C-alpha cells in the first residue's frame, strides 16, 4: 500500500510540474507520471504475489467523509494493468505532445488523469470511489478538449462524453447510496458486512443502477455511444489510456459491487451482464468492420473486447450462483486475463494509430497506405498488436480467447437451463466476433499500413520520435509474452478473481508456463506451439534453400495488361468492408444516397453522379436522438412560461399560497 500511496503522491507532484516553462514542462511531468506508474505497478505486483490485504484511512481529506483505500488482489490487478499502460502512455507523450498539448491545463489534466485512474481500484468507500471517478471524468474531459481548435468535432465528442459520464456517475452514486443507506455506513466494509441482511429487491435495484453506470463506462452496447466519438478525438496517449485502462475500470466496478460487495446476488443479474456482453461483442465487431476511420475502428473493437470480457464475467457470476464455483473461477480468470491482455494490445494499437496520424496528418484509412517502408517500426508493432487482437496462436489474444472458450464450455455441465442457453449464446457470440474482428484488423493493417500510399500525406510519412516507438514496444511486449507463457500470470489473476468473487482459492490452471486446466481436461502449451511454428518455418526455409532457385527480381504487379497502375486503383477501407456491410445491412442500416444531376438540356444526359455511404450508429439514431429532441422541445416550452410579465410571476406565487392554504385547511 505504501508504494501505491507514494505513486499517487508522485502523480500529484507531476501535476505541479505544469508550472515549469513550456519546453521543460512536458518531459518532467511525463517522467514523474512514469515514475508514479512504476511505483504503483511494483506495489500492485507485490500485493498480487503476497495476497494479503492492506488498507489506509484518513479523515483529514474529503471533509465529512474521509478517504478509505484498500488494496486487495482484485484492485491490485487493475492497478497493475493501468500502471503498465500509464507508463507507456507517459513515455509516448514525451515525443507526442506539441501545440495545445503542452498547455498547462493539458499537462495538469494528464497527470491527474493517470493518478485518478490508479486511485479508483483502491478506493474502498463510496466517497473516495466517486471522488476518484469524477476526477477521472473531468480530467479526461479537459484532455478531450485540448485539441478542439484543430478538430471541431472534438467539441461534439466532449459534450456526448461529458453528459454520458455524468449520467453514469449519477447511476453509480444512486446505487451505492442505496446500499450505504441500508448498511449504516458509506465504507465498503460496512456494505460488505450488511449485504446479506439487505432484501433482494433493494439489492437488485442497487445492482442494476451500478451496472448501468459501470457498463456505460465499459462501453456495453446500449450505453456505448460516447466511446466511438470520444476515443478518436482524444490525443493518442489519452485514448490509449482510455481504451486500455479506463474502460476496464467499468468491468472492475461490476465485479467489485456485484461479486464482492453484494456477494454474488441473484442469477438473473449475471444473465443480464452476459446478455450485455453478447450484444456488445457482436455490435462492436460488426461496426469495427464497417468503419473507415482507424481510431473509430479501434474504439468499436474496444466495445467488442469489453463485450467478450462481460460474457466471461456474466458466465462466472451465473455459474457461481447456481453452485459451480470451480467452473466460475475458470470463467472469471479468463475474463480478467482478457482484460490484462486487452489493455496491452489495445493501448499499443491506439499509440500506433496516433503515430500514423502524427506522421500523415490523417487517420482516415481511405487516405493512408504505404507506411510499411517509411515507418517500419510502427508497422511491425501495429502488426504484432493486430495479430494479438485477431487471437492468432502465439499471441496473448489467443490465450485469452482460449481460456474464455474453455470457461464457457466447461460451464455446460451446469443444470439450470437458463445458464446453459446463456453460455451457448456466449460461445456463438465469441465465435462470430472472432471472425469479424479478423476482417476489421486485416483491413486496418493491410489498407492502413501496407500497399501503396493513397495520398500525398501518406507518401511523405516519416518515422515518429524514438520515445513514441519505445512506448509502443513496451506495450507490444506483453502481447507476445502473455501469449507464450500465460501460465506464469494465471496464479496472480486467479488470486484477483478469488478476491472479486469469493471463490475457492485453488488456481484453475496447473502451475507451469502453459495452460493445463486442473479439474477439466483441456490444455495448450503455447510455448511449445511457438517452437513448433518456428521449427516449421526453419524446415521450410532450409528445404527451399536446398531445392528451390534463389534468384529474385522486382517487377511491376499484374494489372491485367494495363500500362500504368495508380495508387487510387487499390481497394479502400470502405470497399474492403462493403461486402460485410451488404450482408449485415439490417443491423448496420447504412444510409447511402445517390444523386444524379442531369444536364440542363435533357434528362437523358447526366452531368454528375454523387454517391455517399454513411454508417452511423443505429443505436444512437433510434435511442438517443429521440430523447435529445424531447428535451430540446421541453426546453422551448419551458422558456415560454418565463415570458417576462410581472402578473404571471405574481400569479405563480399567489397560486402557490392558495394551494398551500387549501392543503393546510
Amino acid at each position: 500500500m505504501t508504494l501505491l500511496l507514494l505513486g499517487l503522491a508522485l502523480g500529484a507532484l507531476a501535476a505541479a510540474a505544469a508550472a515549469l516553462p513550456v519546453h521543460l514542462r512536458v518531459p518532467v511531468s511525463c517522467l514523474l507520471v512514469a515514475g508514479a506508474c512504476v511505483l504503483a505497478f511494483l506495489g500492485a505486483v507485490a500485493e498480487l504475489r503476497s495476497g494479503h490485504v492492506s488498507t489506509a484511512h484518513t479523515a483529514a481529506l474529503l471533509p465529512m467523509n474521509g478517504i478509505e483505500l484498500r488494496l486487495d488482489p482484485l484492485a491490485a490487478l487493475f492497478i497493475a494493468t493501468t500502471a503498465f499502460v500509464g507508463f507507456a502512455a507517459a513515455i509516448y507523450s514525451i515525443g507526442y505532445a506539441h501545440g495545445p498539448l503542452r498547455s498547462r491545463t493539458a499537462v495538469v489534466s494528464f497527470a491527474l488523469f493517470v493518478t485518478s485512474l490508479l486511485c479508483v481500484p483502491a478506493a474502498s468507500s463510496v466517497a473516495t470511489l466517486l471522488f476518484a471517478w469524477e476526477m477521472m471524468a473531468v480530467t479526461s474531459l479537459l484532455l478531450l478538449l485540448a485539441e478542439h481548435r484543430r478538430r471541431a468535432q472534438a467539441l461534439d465528442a466532449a459534450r456526448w462524453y461529458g453528459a454520458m459520464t455524468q449520467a453514469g456517475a449519477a447511476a453509480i452514486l444512486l446505487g451505492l447510496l442505496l446500499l450505504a443507506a441500508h448498511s449504516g455506513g458509506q465504507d465498503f466494509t460496512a456494505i460488505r458486512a450488511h449485504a446479506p441482511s439487505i432484501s433482494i429487491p433493494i439489492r437488485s435495484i442497487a445492482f442494476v443502477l451500478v451496472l448501468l453506470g459501470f457498463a456505460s463506462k465499459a462501453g456495453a452496447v446500449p450505453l456505448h455511444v460516447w466511446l466511438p466519438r470520444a476515443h478518436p478525438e482524444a490525443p493518442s496517449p489519452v485514448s490509449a489510456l482510455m481504451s486500455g485502462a479506463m474502460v476496464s475500470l467499468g468491468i472492475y466496478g461490476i465485479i467489485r459491487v456485484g461479486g464482492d460487495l453484494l456477494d454474488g446476488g441473484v442469477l438473473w443479474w449475471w444473465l443480464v451482464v452476459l446478455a450485455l456482453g453478447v450484444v456488445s461483442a457482436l455490435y462492436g465487431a460488426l461496426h469495427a468492420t464497417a468503419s473507415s476511420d482507424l481510431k473509430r475502428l479501434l474504439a468499436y473493437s474496444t466495445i467488442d473486447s469489453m463485450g467478450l470480457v462481460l460474457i466471461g464475467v456474466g458466465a462466472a457470476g451465473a455459474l457461481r450462483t447456481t453452485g459451480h464455483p470451480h467452473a466460475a473461477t475458470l470463467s472469471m480468470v479468463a475474463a480478467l486475463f482478457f482484460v490484462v491482455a486487452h489493455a496491452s494490445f489495445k493501448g499499443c494499437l491506439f499509440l500506433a494509430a496516433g503515430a500514423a496520424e502524427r506522421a500523415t496528418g490523417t487517420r482516415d484509412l481511405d487516405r493512408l497506405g504505404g507506411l510499411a517502408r517509411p515507418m517500419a517500426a510502427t508497422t511491425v508493432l501495429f502488426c504484432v498488436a493486430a495479430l494479438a487482437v485477431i487471437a492468432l496462436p502465439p499471441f496473448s489474444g489467443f490465450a485469452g480467447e482460449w481460456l474464455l472458450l474453455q470457461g464457457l464450455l466447461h460451464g455446460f455441465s451446469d443444470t439450470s437451463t437458463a445458464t446453459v442457453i446463456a453460455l451457448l449464446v456466449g460461445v456463438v457470440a465469441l465465435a462470430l466476433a472472432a471472425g469479424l474482428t479478423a476482417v476489421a484488423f486485416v483491413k486496418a493493417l493491410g489498407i492502413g499500413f501496407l500497399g501503396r500510399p493513397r495520398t500525398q500525406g501518406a507518401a511523405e510519412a516519416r518515422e515518429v520520435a524514438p520515445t513514441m516507438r519505445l512506448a509502443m514496444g513496451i506495450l507490444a511486449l506483453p502481447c507476445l509474452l502473455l501469449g507464450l507463457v500465460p501460465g506464469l500470470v494465471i496464479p496472480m489473476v486467479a488470486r484477483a478473481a478469488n478476491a472479486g468473487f469469493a471463490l475457492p482459492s485453488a488456481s484453475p490452471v496447473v502451475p507451469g508456463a502453459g495452460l493445463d486446466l486442473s479439474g477439466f481436461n483441456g490444455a495448450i502449451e503455447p510455448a511449445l506451439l511457438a517452437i513448433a511454428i518456428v521449427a516449421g518455418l526453419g524446415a521450410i526455409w532450409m528445404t527451399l534453400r536446398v531445392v528451390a532457385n534463389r534468384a529474385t527480381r522486382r517487377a511491376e504487379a499484374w494489372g491485367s495488361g494495363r500500362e500504368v497502375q495508380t495508387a487510387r486503383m487499390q481497394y479502400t477501407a470502405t470497399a474492403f468492408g462493403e461486402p460485410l456491410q451488404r450482408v449485415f445491412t439490417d443491423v448496420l442500416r447504412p444510409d447511402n444516397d445517390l444523386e444524379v444531376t442531369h444536364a440542363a438540356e435533357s434528362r437523358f444526359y447526366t452531368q454528375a453522379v454523387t454517391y455517399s455511404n454513411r454508417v452511423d450508429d443505429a443505436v444512437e439514431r433510434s435511442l438517443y436522438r429521440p430523447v435529445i429532441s424531447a428535451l430540446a422541445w421541453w426546453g422551448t416550452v419551458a422558456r415560454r412560461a418565463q415570458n417576462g410579465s410581472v402578473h404571471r410571476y405574481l400569479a405563480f406565487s399567489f397560486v402557490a399560497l392558495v394551494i398551500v392554504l387549501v392543503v393546510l385547511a
Partner: protein
Amino acid sequence: MTLYLEVLEIAAGAVLVCAVVTLWRRDVRAIVTILAVQGVCLGIVAGDLAIHQRDLALGATALLVLAAKGLVVPLLLRRVLRKDPRSRETTPLVNIPASLVAAAALIVLSYVVSSKIIALDPSPATRLVPLGVATVLVGYFLLVTRQRTVSQIVGLLVVDNGIALVTFLVTSGVPLIVELGASLDVLLVVVVLQVLATSLGSRFGSFELDELTELHD
C-alpha cells in the same frame, strides 16, 4: 366592555370592506382615498386595543399607523398620480365581477384557515382574525390582477394593512422595536416604489405594466 368590542368589530370590518371596494372601483384616484380610509380604520383598531389593554407601546404604534398609513402614504401616491393624466385603470386582467367572486371565495378560504388560530385562543379579538387574513388575500389578488403601477402599490399596501390587522388582533402588537422596524420598512418600500413608478412613467411614457416584458428567457 361592549363599546370596546363594537368599535373593534366595526373598524376591523371596515378594513376588509375597504379592501373589497378597492377591488371593485376602477378609478385609481378613488382607490388611493379608500386606502387612506383603510389606514385610518387600522389606526382605530390599534387605538381601541391600546385603550382596552392600557398599553402605552400599543398606543404609540396606533398613532404611528394613523400618521403613516393615513396621511403619508396617500400623499406619496397622489404625487405619482399627478404625473399620470389618464386616471382610469385600463381593463384589469380579470374583469370586475369575476374579481368579486374570487374575493368571496378568498374570504371563505380565510375563515376556514383561521379556524385553527381561533381554536388556540378564542378571545373576542382573535375571533376577528379571518377579516385580517381575508384582507391579505384580497390585497394579493388586487396586486396580481391590476395593470397600473399605482394600483400594484395599493395592492401591496392592502396586503400590509391586512397583516398589521392580524398582528394587532392576534398578539395585540409585536414588541415595539419589531413594530417600528416593520412600519419603517413598509414606508421605505412605498417611497422606493413611488420613485420607481415616476421613473417608469417618464421612461416608458405610460404606466402600463404589461408592456414591461423586455426581460424574458
